């Protein structure tokens, strides 16, 4: 749902740029604090993987396609702040090099997908992971949050289109939410498969929040492999 130039009114895109510039600055600061040496190569790999995966449009109903957003996937592995930075970097790169998403709309795209999709998605993931506990909690939380992140980003996009006078809210909001409720199933499936695979093979790569990591994940220290620094 990369918004192109021309869809948003000047007031809307300037406001969105302002909000996302502030939000992204905040994410950069927080991510810097939480960044560990071993997360540096992981952030490179995730940036590369999410960029590549976003190129793979999968068909959904009636001549429509969708692709992975990856915000929740990034946040489950890198934490919410670095996760948002990854998605924002991908969006900036896609916009400047491939004209995928407009330059004026970049602020709105970052706001919808990198900030709301990733940070909001991470919040949902943590709540569910904590409630259910264990590996099942992590996977269920990631799948549910992934679906919500797509529908939330799409709904916010619809709101911006309505505020821009591009399309009435009563039409564009249900239309965007309905299409992305279907695309979000793909997001949930892909995110769940990857998170499940990583939990089986490298559970130490799952981001552990400050202090509550072991309780949330239910992974004792014995489940952790010794971490090799790069």
């Amino acid at each position, binding site marked *: *749902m*990369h*918004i*192109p*130039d*021309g*869809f948003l009114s000047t007031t809307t895109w300037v406001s969105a740029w302002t909000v996302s510039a502030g939000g992204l600055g905040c994410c950069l600061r927080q991510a*810097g604090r*939480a*960044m*560990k040496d*071993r*997360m*540096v*190569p*992981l*952030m*490179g*790999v995730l*940036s*590369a*993987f*999410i*960029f*590549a*995966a976003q*190129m793979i*449009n*999968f*068909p959904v109903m009636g*001549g*429509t*396609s*969708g*692709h992975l957003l990856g915000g929740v996937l990034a946040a489950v592995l890198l934490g919410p702040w*670095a996760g948002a*930075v*990854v998605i924002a970097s*991908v969006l900036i*790169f896609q*916009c400047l*090099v*491939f*004209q*995928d998403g*407009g*330059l*004026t709309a970049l602020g709105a795209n970052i706001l919808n997908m990198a900030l709301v999709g990733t940070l909001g998605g991470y919040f949902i993931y943590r709540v569910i992971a904590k409630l259910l506990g264990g590996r099942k909690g992590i996977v269920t939380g990631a799948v549910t949050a992934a679906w919500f992140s797509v529908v939330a980003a799409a709904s916010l*996009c*619809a709101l911006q289109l309505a505020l821009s006078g*591009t399309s009435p809210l009563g*039409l*564009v909001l249900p*239309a*965007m939410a309905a*299409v*992305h409720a279907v695309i979000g199933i793909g997001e949930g499936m892909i995110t769940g498969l990857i998170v499940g695979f990583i939990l089986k093979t*490298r559970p130490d790569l799952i981001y552990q929040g400050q202090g509550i990591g072991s309780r949330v994940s239910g992974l004792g220290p014995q489940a952790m492999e010794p971490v090799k*620094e*790069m």
Partner: protein
Amino acid sequence: MGKRDAIMGLAVALAIALLLSPFASSWPDGLERVAKDLGFFEKGEGAEVLKAPIPDYKIPGLDSEGVSTALSGTLGTLAMFGIGFGVARLMRRKGQ
């Protein structure tokens, strides 16, 4: 994440970009579909404020769309690895 895992992860990303991207669905995405259905799609036609070097992942001068997509995907994936790695390293240094 160690060096070996990083190389393996990057290899997976590169394989997706190189081998899968030419077969990606070319159907309109969710927003494009809604824009077409609700009649505001043409608002974005020719409204670009920036001429990107590789618009729509099609390398200028390359005839084959599949080769073009695979190539821009592969180069983009490598570049994104560098960007992600670099940004993480900068943040690590500043955050200390």
